[in-house]
C-alpha cells in the first residue's frame, strides 16, 4: 500500500494549513461565501440540506487498518458516530461543523488521507476495481497506475478550473467491477500480442442527465505513454468542452458532438506536443510506487477449518456462498463485508464497526481493506481457514449480512434526506425494498439482481446501469419514481430502458415486487438471472406486470 514520502506529507500539510486559514478568513468575514465556496469544494466540503458534508477520498478504494481507524475517529469525534461510504469510493460525513473541518483534515493527514478534489471541476478521486491486487482474473494490480494518476492530477495546474468535473477509473481484470464504461476516462490493463502490458483507454462514458457508454479511444497505449496520453485527452476536452451549458460540458458530450475519430485525432496531435515534456520522471516515480503495492506473502496450508465450518454451519455457508469471491492465491478468498443490512442505510457504518473491521483486517487479512463503489467493505486477502473466525466476529458486530449481489445489496445515493441537489428520497426506498424481500424470504431464490437508486437525475446511485434502476423525481411537488430495466454495470455495460410512467413513493415497493414476481414466472430455470431473462423476453412482459390496468385499457 502506498505510503507518503516527505514531499507528499509536506504538500498535504501545506494544503491543510492553507485551508485552515481560508476557513478562519471566512468565519471572520474577510472572505465572502462566493469567494470561499470554490475553496471549500476543492477540499471536499459541501453545504447540504441540514449541515455541511465532508467528502473524504479513499483513493482506488484502498485502506489500511490505521486509516480505517482514523475514519472511525472522525465519525466519533466530529460527526454523529457514523460515516457513509459512497458510490465513488469516498466516505462522507454528514454533520461536521465548519470550524472543526481543518482539525478533521489534519487527523486524516496523519494517516495519508485527504479530501482534495473530491468536489469541484477537477479530476476527482481515481477509482479502481475493489478486488484489485487480489482477483483471480486480473492481469496486473491497477492500483499503482491509479496512485500515479492521483499524484499527477492532484493540484495539476492545467486541470483545476475545468468546464466540469472529470472522473477516472482503472481496472486490470477481464471482468469489469469498476464500471469503467460509465467514466469520463477509463484505463484497462491489457496485454498486446507480444505479451507486453499496456493500457486500453476508454473515453466518454457517463451517467447523469445524458447517460453514455464509454468507447475505446485507444486499444493499446504503451506503459510509458499513459500519463502523457491521459493528459492529452483531458487537455483536448478542457479546451473544446462546452462551458456555455453545464449539462453539455462533460467529455461524453464533446465525444458525442465531435465524434470519436475527431477526438482521437486531436488527442494524437496534442500527444505529439505533450509527450516530449515527460522526461521519464513519471516512470521513475511509477517504479517506486509499484514497490508499495507488492502482494503480501500469502501463507500456505490447507482449508480444513473452512471446509468443516462450511459443512456444519448453514449460516456460515450462506454467507460464504454470497460474500466470497475467487482469490488469485491458493487457499485464499476475497471476503466482502456487507454494509447493506436489511432495513439499514446502504453504505453507513458506525465508528465501532469501522474499528472492528480494521481490527479484523489486521488480525486476519494482511492489514488490507477495500471500499467498493457498491458501498461495501472488502477484506481482499483472507486465508479460508480464518473465515469462520472472521464470520463470528462480523456477526457480533452486526456485519455478517449474507446478501452480496442479491436484491438487498442496493446502491443508493443519499437522496433528499441529505443532498441539496436531490429531487426525491432514495435511502428509505432502499430500506423498504430490502426489508420487504427479507420478509418474503425471496432474496436467495431471486439470485443475482442489482437494484440501483438515485434521488435525482445526476445518477450518483448509478440507476442507469442497475438491472433494475430507480430514479426519484419531483413531479408537481410530489416524489415520483421512474423505473428502468436491463441496465448493466459490467464489461457488457448497458443503459437501462424506462418502463413507462413513474410511481408514487408508496407505490414504488409494490411495483418492484410485481417486477420480481414476473421474473420468477418468466425465467426458464433457477439459473437464469434477472438480466438474462430480461434480455431474452424483453420489456413487454414486465410492462404487463407493472401496469396491469393500462394494458387492459389498450386491449
Amino acid at each position, binding site marked *: 500500500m502506498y505510503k507518503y514520502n516527505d514531499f507528499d506529507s509536506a504538500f498535504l500539510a501545506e494544503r491543510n494549513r492553507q485551508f485552515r486559514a481560508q476557513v478562519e478568513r*471566512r*468565519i471572520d*468575514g474577510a472572505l*465572502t*461565501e462566493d469567494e470561499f465556496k470554490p475553496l471549500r469544494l476543492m477540499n471536499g466540503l459541501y*453545504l*447540504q*440540506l*441540514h*449541515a*455541511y458534508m465532508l467528502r473524504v477520498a479513499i483513493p482506488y478504494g484502498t485502506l489500511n487498518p490505521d486509516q480505517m481507524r482514523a475514519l472511525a475517529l472522525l465519525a466519533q469525534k466530529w460527526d*454523529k458516530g457514523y460515516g457513509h461510504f459512497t458510490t465513488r469510493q469516498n466516505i462522507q460525513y*454528514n*454533520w*461536521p*461543523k*465548519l*470550524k472543526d473541518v481543518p482539525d478533521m483534515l489534519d487527523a486524516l493527514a496523519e494517516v495519508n488521507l485527504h479530501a482534495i478534489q473530491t468536489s469541484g471541476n477537477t479530476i476527482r478521486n481515481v477509482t479502481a476495481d475493489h478486488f484489485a491486487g487480489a482477483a483471480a482474473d486480473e492481469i496486473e494490480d491497477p492500483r499503482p497506475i491509479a496512485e500515479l494518476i492521483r499524484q499527477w492530477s492532484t493540484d495539476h495546474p492545467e486541470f483545476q478550473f475545468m468546464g466540469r468535473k472529470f472522473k477516472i477509473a482503472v481496472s486490470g481484470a477481464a471482468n469489469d467491477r469498476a464500471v469503467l464504461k460509465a467514466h469520463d476516462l477509463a484505463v484497462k490493463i491489457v496485454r498486446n500480442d507480444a505479451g507486453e502490458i499496456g493500457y486500453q483507454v476508454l473515453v466518454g462514458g457517463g451517467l447523469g442527465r445524458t447517460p453514455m457508454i464509454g468507447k475505446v479511444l485507444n486499444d493499446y497505449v504503451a506503459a510509458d505513454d499513459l500519463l502523457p496520453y491521459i493528459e492529452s485527452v483531458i487537455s483536448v476536452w478542457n479546451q473544446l468542452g462546452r462551458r456555455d451549458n453545464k449539462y453539455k460540458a462533460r467529455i461524453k458530450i464533446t465525444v458525442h458532438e465531435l465524434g470519436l475519430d475527431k477526438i482521437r485525432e486531436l488527442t494524437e496531435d496534442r500527444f505529439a506536443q505533450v509527450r516530449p515534456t515527460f522526461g521519464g520522471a513519471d516512470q521513475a516515480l511509477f517504479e517506486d510506487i509499484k514497490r508499495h503495492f507488492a502482494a503480501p506473502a500469502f501463507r500456505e496450508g490447507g482449508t480444513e477449518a473452512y471446509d468443516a465450518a462450511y459443512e456444519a454451519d448453514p449460516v456460515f455457508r450462506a454467507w460464504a456462498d454470497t460474500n466470497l469471491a475467487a482469490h488469485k492465491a491458493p487457499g485464499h478468498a476475497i471476503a466482502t463485508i456487507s454494509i447493506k443490512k436489511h432495513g439499514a*442505510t446502504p453504505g*453507513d457504518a458506525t465508528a465501532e464497526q469501522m474499528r472492528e473491521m480494521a481490527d479484523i483486517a489486521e488480525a486476519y487479512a494482511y492489514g488490507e481493506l477495500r471500499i467498493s463503489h457498491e458501498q461495501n467493505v472488502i477484506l481482499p486477502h483472507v486465508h479460508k481457514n480464518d473465515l469462520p473466525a472472521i464470520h463470528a466476529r462480523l456477526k457480533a458486530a452486526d456485519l455478517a449480512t449474507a446478501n452480496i449481489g442479491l436484491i438487498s445489496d442496493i446502491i443508493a445515493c443519499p437522496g*433528499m*434526506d*441529505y443532498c441539496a441537489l436531490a429531487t426525491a*428520497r432514495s*435511502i*428509505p426506498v432502499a*430500506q423498504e425494498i430490502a426489508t420487504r424481500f427479507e420478509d418474503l424470504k425471496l432474496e436467495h431464490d431471486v439470485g443475482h439482481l442489482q437494484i440501483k437508486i438515485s434521488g435525482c437525475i445526476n445518477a450518483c446511485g448509478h440507476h442507469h446501469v442497475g438491472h433494475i434502476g430507480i430514479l426519484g423525481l*419531483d413531479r408537481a*411537488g*410530489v*416524489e415520483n419514481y421512474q423505473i428502468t430495466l436491463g441496465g448493466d454495470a459490467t464489461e457488457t455495460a448497458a443503459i437501462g430502458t424506462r418502463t413507462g410512467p413513474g410511481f408514487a413513493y408508496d407505490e414504488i415497493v409494490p411495483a418492484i415486487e410485481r417486477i420480481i414476481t414476473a421474473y420468477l414466472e418468466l425465467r426458464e430455470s433457477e439459473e437464469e438471472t434477472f438480466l438474462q431473462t430480461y434480455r431474452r423476453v424483453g420489456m413487454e412482459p414486465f410492462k404487463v406486470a407493472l401496469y396491469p390496468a393500462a394494458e387492459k385499457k389498450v386491449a
Partner: protein
Amino acid sequence: MPRAFTPKVVTANDLLEGDVIYLTPAGGWTRELSEAELITDEAEAQLRLLDAQSQPKIAVGAYLADAKAGEQGPEPTHFREEFRRTGPSNYRHGKQEAAANV
C-alpha cells in the same frame, strides 16, 4: 400573466453550524420554521431577502421558500422544505434530534 405571489419565508444555512435557519419578524434568525416570518407581499419578500443576504457572517445561501400559514406558524408547502425543517428520515438526526432532547 405572471404567476400570483405565494407566501414565503426567508431561509438559509447557518455559517458555523450549517443547519437550517429562518428569518424572524424581528429580523433575527431562528431554527424553527414556526417562528419564521411569513411574508405575503412580493416587494417585502425581496427586501427581506436582501436583508438576509447582507448577513454573510450568519447566513449562507439565503433564498425565499414557499410556505403557508398554519396553527403553529408557517408550514412548508413542498416536501423539500418539510425535510429541511425536520431532518433526514433514516435517523432521528437534525432538528428532530434537537426536539427530542428538549
